[in-house]
Each structure stands twice: as C-alpha cells, then as structure tokens.
C-alpha cells in the first residue's frame, strides 16, 4: 500500500495499538458471559437481577452476549485490524525476503553483531574466493557472490520465508473465523435463507422408529434431513459402582428406501452421512417394553412393543400376557412382574429383570419370554460445512506459531579482501530472532571453517 492512499481508516486499522486495545476489550468483556448465565428466558434475568437491570442487560444483549451486536462488532473490528495490519506489513517483509543482500556495503559487515576475521595466508585472491565458496557449500549454505570494490562479497541465508510465520498465524485466525461464519446456523438461516445449509438440532428417536427430519436447536422448527435415520436399539452399560459406562445406540441410515449405513454410535463416536453428523447426546426411558415371545412347541414367535399394565392377546401363540408391575430407579426399570397364561390352568406370575430370558412352563408346553425396556436415543444432529476450514485454520495456526516463534531468518555474509598483501575473509551474520541461538550457529559455523582452513 503506497503512502498516498493511506487515510485515517487505514492508519487506525493498521495500528498495533488498536490490536492491543481489541485484545484487551475482547478479554475483559468475555468475562461477563462467564458470570451472567447465558441463554435463559427473560424471566430468569428479572428474577436474578431485578426488572431494571434485566432490561438494561437485554438491551445490550448480555443474555446471549457472544452473539450480541457489539461482541460480533468487536470480532469484526478485530478481523479488519488483522487484515489491514498484515496487508500493511507484508510488502515490507516481501522486500526483506527478496532483497539483494549482495548490495550490502562491505563496511557494514564490521558493525554486525556476529563477526570473525579469518586470515588466509599464502593464497591468491582467486584461491581465497574458491575456498570461501566451499566453506559455505560444505556446511550446507547456498551461497552467492559478487565482486566489489576491494574484494568479493558472499551472501547466504536460511529461513527467509520464516518471516511470514506471523502472517500465517494472522491468516489462520481469519480462516477459523471464516469457517465459523460458513458453519453458523444463524448465518445460514438469516443471510443465506437456507436453514438446511448449516444447522444444529436434535431429535428423540425411540427404538424401532425412524425419522427424516430433526428439530432446530434455535427455533424448534423441523429441518428435513434428505434421508431417513432409524434407531434399532439403545442400551446403557453401567460400571459396578452404578456409574454409567456407555450409552450406545444402533442406527440405520436409509436413503431412497435402501439401507446405506448401519452403525453403533456412542458419546465420542458419532455417525456421519452426507455432511450431517449424529451424536449420542441423551436418552429417554419409557414405561413400555420390547417383548420377544416364542412358543417352543409350535415355534411361533412374536416381537412387539407393549405398554406396561395392559393385557395383550397373542392369538397365534395361543396365550395372553402382560407386564403387571415394575420396580424402578428413576425412570429406569430394574425388575418387571410378568403375568402369562396359555388359557389353561392358573396364570403364571413372576418377577424378572429386563433383558433376561425366562422359560415359562405351561400345561400346553414351554414358552420363552424376554422383555427390554423401551428407550429413545437423544441425538444431537449437526451440519457444519465450515468445520474443515476451522480445522485447517487451527493446523495453520500451530504451524505458524512454531515458525514465528522458533525459526528465524539467518544471514551470513563474507568479504574476501586483500590488505597490504595479506588476504583475509571477514565473516559476519545476523538473525531477526533468537539472537542467542544465532550466536551459537555462527560460532559453530566459524569453528568448522577454522577446522577446514587448518
């Protein structure tokens, strides 16, 4: 950017002062949302803070502060600041990276932080130049040279590109923010008018049921999936101390009526299909049961979902049954009492745990009985077309930080000259960062050369 079209806007947004101000403001205002509970209904705030303060808070969007106009505004200013700051500085860095270092005045070498004179007695100028070239080459430095007044100047550098590390970090932040915008349900709904493009939602799916839509977390509206997902099975596994160990749902995806995917999902093991991800998030037990019955004599089987406390007539099996009582912990059934008759003699009544098979001996023969409590899996469903950008940005940030902090642009010059019949090489070097580290590099470089020379 040339100096002519710099205006007030540009110089404000290219200043690091603004960056510091914004970082400070973002840091301090962010605290508010960690103290004031977020996303509760208006009454909640009135009850907690009184009507006046609550109204003031609503005006400033405090109940959803990270989506409020002023916080988003701060983020926009922050992004602009990042863009302008980087655009302002990148051309200078480009110049530093591509500049012709052989234009350096040899006198300047004597003022550099690191320098060392090595005499090359008994060599001609030509031999000294060849030797110096090999000193660089043998240590892996790609060297260029140019004849100057009074001698030959050599230059080699490493890591010039590392000067861009900091801008890699800056762009990574912008990439992450871009990914966040693309994946934002609000942006999809309000700006693209395409709630299907990006959404977060949920659905309670009882075992045996299927759905082709879910409910938006933002406004509760139905969002079509474009395919069908069915819950085939749900169960909870417990540790011996009663703590839940695993929530597992078996899901089937049907596209155009065909089964395309069948998988168990757990917390931390979601299922993805066509850019939509299904997470095992919660569950809901029902006072109903999936009952499996077999008439061992005739081989007739029955599998059905039945409510508790209802008599079921099983004509084909020649029997009637029901679950007449339950022992529960919360909503979870721990034991059930089964009533069963084949219409001959006294009905059987017995307690049994869910998922256990019972053999019922009846006058007409043996029956197998198994009941599982009916559950629904609570699925968190999201479609985030921006997440790959966010991940890309995160990866770039880590690479950028490593480059910016731990790698430096190292330059080494050498000047071969003749003074009073004596040929010497003056080595000098500098680095843009980690001067102590460069001092070591330079000393090692010179020590090697002394080794070669002797």
């Amino acid at each position, binding site marked *: 950017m040339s100096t002519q079209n710099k205006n007030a806007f540009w110089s404000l947004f290219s200043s*690091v*002062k603004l*960056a*510091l101000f914004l*970082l*400070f403001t*973002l*840091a301090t205002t*962010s*605290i508010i*949302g*960690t*103290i004031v*509970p*977020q996303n509760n209904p208006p009454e909640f705030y009135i009850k907690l803070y009184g009507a006046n303060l609550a109204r003031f808070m609503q005006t400033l969007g405090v109940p959803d502060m*990270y989506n409020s106009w002023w916080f988003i505004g701060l983020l926009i200013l922050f992004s602009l600041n990042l863009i302008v700051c980087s655009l302002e500085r990148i051309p200078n860095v480009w110049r530093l990276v591509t500049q012709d270092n052989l234009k350096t005045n040899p006198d300047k070498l004597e003022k550099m932080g690191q320098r060392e004179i090595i005499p090359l007695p008994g060599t001609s100028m030509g031999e000294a130049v060849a030797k110096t070239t090999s000193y660089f080459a043998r240590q892996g430095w790609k060297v260029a040279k140019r004849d100057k007044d009074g001698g030959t100047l050599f230059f080699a550098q490493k890591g010039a590109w590392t000067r861009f590390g900091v801008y890699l970090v800056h762009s990574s932040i912008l990439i992450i923010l871009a990914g*966040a915008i693309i994946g934002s349900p609000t942006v999809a709904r309000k700006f693209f008018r395409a709630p299907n493009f990006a959404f*977060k939602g949920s659905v309670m799916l009882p075992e045996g049921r299927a759905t082709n839509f879910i409910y938006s977390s933002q406004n509760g509206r139905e969002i079509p999936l474009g395919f069908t997902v069915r819950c085939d099975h749900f169960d909870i596994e417990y*540790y011996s*101390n009663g*703590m*839940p*160990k*695993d*929530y597992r749902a078996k899901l089937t995806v049907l596209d155009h009526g065909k089964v395309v995917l069948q998988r168990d999902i*757990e*917390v*931390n093991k*979601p299922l993805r299909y066509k850019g939509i*991800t299904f*997470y095992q*998030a919660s569950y809901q037990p029902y006072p109903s049961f999936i009952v499996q019955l077999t008439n061992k004599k005739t081989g007739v089987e029955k599998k059905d979902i039945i409510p508790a406390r209802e008599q079921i007539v099983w004509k084909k099996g020649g029997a009637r049954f029901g679950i007449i009582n339950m022992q529960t912990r919360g909503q979870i059934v721990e034991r059930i009492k089964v009533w069963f008759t084949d219409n001959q003699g006294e009905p059987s009544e017995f307690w049994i745990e869910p998922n256990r098979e019972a053999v019922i001996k009846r006058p007409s023969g043996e029956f197998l009985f198994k009941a599982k409590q009916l559950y629904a899996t609570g699925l*968190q*469903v*999201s479609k*985030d077309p921006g*997440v790959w950008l*966010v*991940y890309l940005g*995160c990866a770039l*940030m*880590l690479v950028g*930080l*490593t480059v910016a*902090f731990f790698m430096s642009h190292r330059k080494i010059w050498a000047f071969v000259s003749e003074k009073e019949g004596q040929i010497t090489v003056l080595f000098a070097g500098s680095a843009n960062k980690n001067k*102590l580290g460069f001092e070591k590099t330079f000393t090692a470089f010179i020590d090697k050369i002394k080794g070669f020379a002797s």
Partner: protein
Amino acid sequence: MNSSQLFGIATLAYLLSSALYTALLIFKNKKIGYYAITVTILGFLIQTAALGLRWYESYQQGIGHAPLTNMYESLVFFSWATILFYIILEFKVKNRVIGAFVVPIAFVAMAYASLAKGMSQQIEPLNPALQSNWLIAHVITCFIGYSAFAVAAGLGVMYLLKKSAINKNLPPDTLTGSLPDLLFIDHLTHRTIVFGFLWLSAGIISGAVWANEAWGTYWSWDPKETWSIITWFIYASTLHARFTRGWRGSRIAWLAIIGFLAVFFTYFGVNYLLSGLHSYGSQ
C-alpha cells in the same frame, strides 16, 4: 507401596528442594544448589513412577485410563509438568536460583492435591464423555502450557524483586544479589511465555476438536472455553506489546504474573465458581 505413598514422598521431596533452593538464594553456596537439583530430580523420578503406578492400578481395578481425569490427577500432573519444565530449563540456562521461584509452585500444587477438603483421590471410572483419545492430547497440551506459564510467573516475580533491589540500591550481597541479571530474566520470561503460548493454543485447539467429536460443537462459550481464550488474549497482547511496542522488563514481568492469574482462574476458578462442562473439580 502404592501410588499415593509415592506421591507423598514426591511432595516431601519438593518441599525439601524448595527449602534447598531458598537456602541457595540466601547462602549462595554452590553445594546447596547441587543438593537442590538432586532432590528435585529424585522427587521427579518418584512422581513419574507414581503416575505410572496409578495408571497401572486403574487397570487392576478394571477401569484402566491415564491418570489425567479429575482435579486431583490434574494437580499432580500440573506439578509433574512444572518440575519437568524446570529441570530442563535449569540444565539449559545453567542457573539454579530460579528453582526458588518455581519448585514451591509444584510443591503447593501437590500439597493442595493431597490435603484439600473434598478432594477425591480415588481412581474413578470414566464417564462416557471422557472416553476419548483426545482426553490425553487435550490434558497434556494444556498442562504443558500451564506449567510454562507458572514458570514465567515465577520469573516475573524474580524480575520485580531484583528490580526493586536495584532501585533501592541494595548492596549486591543481599538476598537478591544472587539473582541473574535483569536482561537475562527478561529474555527467559519471554521465551517461556512464547513456549507456553504455543502449547496453550494447542490445548485450546485439541479441546475444540474433541468437543466437536463428542457434541458437534467446537466452540460453545462454555466458561472454561471462554476463560481459556481470555488467557490466550492476555498472552497474545503480551507478545504483541513486546514485539511491536518494545515492552520490556517490569511490564512484561507484570503481564507474566497477570497471565498466570488468568491461567489459575481458568484452571481453578472456573471449576469452583462457575458452572459448565469441565465440572471435574466441582464435586
């Protein structure tokens, strides 16, 4: 011998080494410094063994998982990482008095872990949300960052002490005389913050990826997340102030201390004072 007993011995070792480093500061006797680092390394080896043993014990209980899952284990790991960071630092910069400002932090963390009221030291099974490979990556990256920031804060305190001694024209044979020179402390504080910043970033990122795997949201402004980004903002400001506005010395020292206070709140305050997803410390 079980892991708790070993942790107890490590705690005592850190107490002893804190005392030795303080003695080194006062008496400036090289021998004391040698004892101090020896005791620190011994304590570290014992603590490392204890961590391994606790991991093994969890498998014996049939709930095997890395010892990184509750407040107690996180404090132990924080102290371990701080000592490891410090030992490497001491060998790199060949200066022992820094230990007087760092080892006590590790000791206090261990002592608090074993003595605090309501701190469960049991090995507990993992709830379904914590059963993820990201757990280890997330905890390790965060705590390397935290331990670096702890060291940076220690260095900040050291800088301010030395500075005030110089301002008061105290003779060089007083306590602060044995501290390294200001430029060196300043340089080291900066390098340590830079290192911590990279790991804090990695910690936040691994947490975000994990959250997305578990819940489908990589960022939800949960208080822990928010405080981690506040901490990140503070250190980002510190680095910018130094790189572009030339802040040095006392200002950076103060920022190192303020930054660590934010780390401390992210780690502790959020668990005890605010509600959210990272409730491992609140029970």
